[in-house]
């Protein structure tokens, strides 16, 4: 019963991503979009243990527009079609904005 977490805010400036991490459960999916892309290199990312099997994705053009590089060993690069698909293949959506 995974949840899709859509993260839209920079955690350097707001508490939203921290709150997302508080409710994260095994097998959940996080997608970084909009200003959420500023979180890609934030130390909080390393607190997400690999044993929890969290899928981390980024909308390509949202990161590129902001000049943010994507570490492909950590993140799955997706487009808007993939986000729509993830909406339907997970069980609920929470938007952190």
């Amino acid at each position, binding site marked *: 019963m995974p949840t899709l977490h*859509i993260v*839209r805010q920079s955690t350097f400036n707001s508490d939203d991503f921290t709150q997302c991490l508080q409710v994260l459960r095994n097998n959940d999916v996080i997608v970084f*979009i*909009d200003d959420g892309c500023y979180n890609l290199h934030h130390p909080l990312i390393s607190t997400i243990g690999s044993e929890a099997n969290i899928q981390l994705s980024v909308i390509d053009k*949202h990161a590129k527009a902001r000049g943010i590089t994507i570490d492909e060993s950590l993140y799955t690069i997706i487009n*808007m*079609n993939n*986000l*729509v698909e993830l*909406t*339907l293949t997970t069980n*609920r*959506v929470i*938007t952190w*904005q």
Partner: protein
Amino acid sequence: MKKIAVVVTTPPYSNLSVTALDYVETALKSGVELVGVFFYQDGVMHANQQAQIASDEFQCLQQWQLLHQRFQLPLHLCITAAEKRGLSDGQPNNIHPNFTVSGLGELVELVNKADRLVQF
């Protein structure tokens, strides 16, 4: 076939609303059924006919109307949130006719019609 409802809370002069539009348009074009978009909080400003966005900037308001026309996408406006922000269905009426003047009861409907609700 699964159905999606969308809530938009961001104003037309924010790029966050472009993302919402992009999501809805992508879903519609891939054949997903969108049961409706509910405009709440600053999202209600998308229905303001009087709003003027510089011609070289992205025309959010126009884009919602195109989606409405092309896909019969229902656009629901929370009238309480809208009235606080200077929209009015009285005289003069400045709400674009493609929007349906609604209350929060409509959001209950959308939640029950949809398999997923996505908030922007």
